[in-house]
């Protein structure tokens, strides 16, 4: 590329657009489907049902400790497809670039997307670029993921939680949220985003005969919100044990200062799995063997009903033996976190 910044010409569809495609996206994302450079991608037929999920990514800052908007845009969509019990196979990506964006930054972000796609074993098969006037010299990305369902009869679902099941979370809560907030506030610390592809962990559970009743990624709204959705959908009560909730010490201190609760903070590389009690130990071992699951913990159980709360609720057993209700996130949360 002979210029260093994105200009309106890069979105014109003319020569500058073609250069951008060739030198950045084509170079990093190359594969036999994309390389045909047609108006659309032709994909081979699949005997299984297809799962499709789409997500847009608007995080600021666009590069942060532990990841960037590109890695996030692959992880977020791949993980959503994965949580349906599907095998992610293809991605499309739409870029909305702001005039003035450094092409070197875009190159780094495309490279990081390509690395995440390789890790997830998905091909980026179609894409689009637009350039808009903007205030931040940034970019936004939309990705759509396509996967094939493993087994149409028994995929995990929030409605499948059963009394006696064990609730497992794959690691420390709140890292991504605390990382983004620290960056925005200019607070120097060692907190990094947990942004990660969850394929290895999910594959390990689903390919080893664990009867995973529920599997959900824990993103915006935090664990508290996800567990309420599960309790609601299944009509059960989820009971958590406060002392088992895993939070990194530095994130815990950060939350204390900022008045934040890790239960409601966003994550980008965490899942919650609900499995039968008899398989819980083995499920934990499998999850911990995966890089993204090394801090996995059993944090509670599913109970049919509780005298104090109605069905569809989440309760916490506190350290001093009391209980409290864990509700969904209310209020604004932190904008532009993903």
């Amino acid at each position, binding site marked *: 590329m002979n210029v260093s910044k994105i200009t309106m010409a890069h979105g014109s569809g003319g020569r500058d657009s073609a250069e951008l495609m060739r030198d950045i996206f084509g170079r990093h994302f190359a594969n036999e489907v994309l390389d045909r450079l047609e108006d659309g991608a032709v994909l081979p037929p699949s005997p299984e049902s297809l799962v499709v999920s789409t997500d847009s990514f608007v995080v600021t800052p666009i590069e942060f400790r532990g990841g960037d908007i590109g890695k996030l845009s692959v992880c977020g969509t791949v993980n959503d497809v994965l949580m349906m019990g599907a095998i992610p196979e293809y991605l499309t990506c739409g870029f909305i670039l702001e005039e003035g964006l450094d092409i070197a930054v875009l190159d780094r972000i495309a490279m990081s997307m390509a690395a995440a796609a390789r890790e997830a074993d998905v091909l980026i098969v179609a894409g689009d670029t637009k350039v808009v006037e903007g205030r931040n010299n940034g970019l936004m990305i939309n990705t759509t993921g396509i996967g094939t369902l493993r087994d149409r009869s028994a995929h995990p679902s929030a409605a499948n939680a059963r009394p006696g099941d064990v609730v497992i979370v794959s690691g420390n809560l709140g890292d991504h949220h605390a990382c983004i907030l620290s960056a925005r506030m200019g607070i120097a610390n060692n907190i990094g985003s947990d942004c990660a592809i969850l394929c290895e962990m999910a594959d390990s559970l689903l390919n080893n005969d664990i009867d995973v009743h529920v599997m959900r990624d824990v993103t915006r709204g935090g664990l508290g919100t996800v567990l309420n959705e599960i309790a609601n959908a299944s009509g059960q009560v989820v009971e958590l044990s406060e002392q088992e909730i895993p939070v990194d010490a530095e994130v815990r201190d950060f939350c204390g200062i900022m008045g934040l*609760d890790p239960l409601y903070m966003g994550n980008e590389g965490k899942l919650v799995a609900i499995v039968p009690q008899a398989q819980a130990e083995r499920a934990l071992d499998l999850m911990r063997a995966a890089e993204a699951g090394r801090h996995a913990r059993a944090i509670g159980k599913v109970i049919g009903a509780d005298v104090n709360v109605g069905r569809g609720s989440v309760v916490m057993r506190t350290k*001093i*033996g009391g*209980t*409290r209700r864990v*509700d969904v996130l209310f*209020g604004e949360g932190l*904008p532009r976190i993903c």
Partner: protein
Amino acid sequence: MKSIYEKLEYLKARKAPPLKLMEVCGTHTAAIFKSGIRGVLSPTIRLISGPGCPVCVTPASYIDRCVAYAHTPDHTVACFGDMLKVPGSVCSLSEAKAEGGRVEMIYSPFEVADLAAAEPRQTFIIAAVGFETTAPAYALLMDELTERGIENVKLLTALKSAIPAIEWICESEESVDGFLCPGHVSVVTGSGVYEPLAARYGKPFVVAGFEEMHLVDAIYELARLAEDHRSSAANPAETSLVRNLYGEAVSAEGNTKARRVTARYFEAGRATWRGLGELDESGLYLRDEYRRFDAGSHDLAEDVALPDGCRCADVITGRIDPDECPMFGTACAPGRPAGPCMVSSEGACGIWYSNRG
């Protein structure tokens, strides 16, 4: 010296006469619910919430003024997230933003200095709400604004001192047997500030932190002091009824440096508290020499009436528990709040609602 577990056991089994203890600060209300201690305590100990949520005691007329600024051309309102959904008599700042008003959510007042420097034609109105704890940050912002020569920032202050409100409660709510003092406010004021109140009203004041074991310790200490004081009531005790159990953060004299920087820019004046009315010397206003940075904070004495049925005022003063309000959970819930206590993360109604059965 009893261990914390022995103290907890005592509080679980306590049979002595009923005790009504007020946690002044909203952060304590949140910590109390988070710890689950209410369900563990003996029924003889009742914990009530006080006026220590700065957003909750801010009159609706203040929100109305902020909304008006958001819709004024070339003006932007900057506020903390807590303020966004607080209903004014017309709408909230969040609704004003959706209708095209300019509102920026900030995490620190210092962000505004950079925003203002980047957009010199905009006037940034900071919704400066808070207690002794928050005021020094605004004073330091004033330092920065004057140093950098930034003139397009104004403060609409509803800064308050918690101490006159505690005194108001002592004066008008005799049934409160003791106070769990606000931890963060005490960092600035010092625990010594409660000595005259404790002596005059014969009630214990305990300063504590926010962890569950801090709470157990503080409630035990309040119960013990109140019982001892009752049993020796005929002969008023010479010894102090103030205890500081938060020594790692709070000293007797407090943070004099923070108070000094606050006093450089702000002076005390009359202020209106939702539920309590006007209290002398309870508000902080920019001094005359900095009045050009003020956005009209003095003319907000009149509060608009609360919505019909809203018992915010009784909740703030601890006269009722939030779920005794007829609107609680029905006409008033976090998604569609009628009063500020349902919105703020330190508001008693919102905290009760998220812990409802």
